[in-house]
């Protein structure tokens, strides 16, 4: 059956009637309409008496398992709108703040893996000093801290904001010092590039996080 024919029949069954060009409905359609009418006319059914109370007693007795609670919390849809430029100017929610911290964490996790692979290959040809060899681990620890702060910020409390502010300041300072240490310890041209990269990533990110935290805190002012 073609779509337009089905539409005509369904339209007729829905009481919209046939369009003039479609002509009058045939007996076939009238019979279908009568069957639909019979079903519509069937009285609605009610559950037995005391049904509501039985359902509620099961709900009262229901104790979800820990895994179930965890699963529900992870599967529960969260809607977070984020506008990084607005976050620099106007108050933002704890959830939005949390999102930025987690994203920074994800970035450092990826960077840590890349550095780990890169330095491993580089190690065969160059002797890297101690501080430089620790860069992948530093990136991964930074990632972990950022994600932890981000998750804590989901609680959207004043203490979480304070922790995030301290974390951002430590991060900013560390990003700056890290760049300096790398260039001091490693006397090869690539060290200048790594210092620059550390500063270029760390400083704007740190300032952005601090500013976001400040704007998030405005809601409590």
């Amino acid at each position: 059956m073609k779509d337009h024919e089905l539409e005509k029949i369904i339209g007729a069954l829905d009481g919209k009637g046939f369009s003039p060009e479609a002509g009058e409905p045939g007996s076939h359609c009238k019979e279908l309409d009568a069957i639909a009418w019979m079903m519509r006319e069937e009285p609605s059914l009610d559950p037995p008496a005391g049904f509501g109370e039985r359902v509620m007693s099961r709900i009262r007795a229901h104790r979800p398992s820990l895994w179930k609670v965890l699963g529900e919390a992870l599967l529960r849809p969260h809607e977070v709108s984020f506008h990084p430029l607005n976050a620099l100017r106007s108050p933002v929610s704890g959830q939005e703040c949390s999102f930025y911290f987690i994203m920074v964490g994800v970035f450092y996790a990826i960077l840590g893996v890349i550095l780990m692979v890169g330095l491993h290959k580089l190690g065969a040809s160059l002797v890297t000093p101690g501080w430089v060899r620790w860069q992948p681990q530093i990136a991964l620890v930074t990632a972990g801290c950022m994600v932890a702060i981000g998750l804590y910020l989901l609680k959207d409390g004043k203490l979480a904001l304070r922790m995030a502010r301290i974390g951002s300041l430590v991060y900013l300072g560390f990003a700056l010092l890290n760049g300096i240490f790398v260039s001091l310890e490693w006397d090869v041209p690539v060290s200048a590039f790594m210092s620059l990269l550390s500063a270029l990533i760390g400083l704007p990110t740190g300032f952005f996080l601090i500013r976001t935290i400040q704007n998030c805190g405005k809601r409590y002012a």
Partner: protein
Amino acid sequence: MKQIDEGEIIGRVLGGDREAFAVLVDAYKGPVFSLAFRMTGSTQDADDLTQESFLRAFQSLGRFRAGERFFPWLYTVSLNVIRNHLRKAKALPEGAAGNAVPETSDPSGDAAYAAIGRERGRRLQGYLLRMPVPVREALILRFYEGLSFEDIASVTGDKLSSAKMKVYRGLKKIRVMMEADGFVDDETRS
């Protein structure tokens, strides 16, 4: 059906107020029970499945999206519970069809009319139970529960055209079964 602020009630339930769920149970127990009965043909199964549907809805309420309509979501949950039951049950027991249609009050008060109506209802229920489950769902949701085709498509996960086609095919099958049974109501000839 009473007008209730579903969003507010769901918020209260998610906030830990389990008793607030009673409002949703009270508002929707009739339609869900009706759906379960039409799908299974057994009041006992309908009772169990309706309870199970509400329990499942309560457990999954965290996944309900704010702004979504609760009723179609509840229907989706209920249909999944019913489908699982039918899959497990596979074949219906002999004579289940229409034997246990719950008593309903006849608004006209005419006993003869009520008897005809009951007989017609029993037969229709029997035809429904002989339908493939997807077609049965579409017919029940459309004509017994009064859902729009858009809502049927959303609840069953079908395309709109597929939902319409199932309803059409279902009606045609019923007509064939009625003719085969020699049960041709006057209304179908009018």
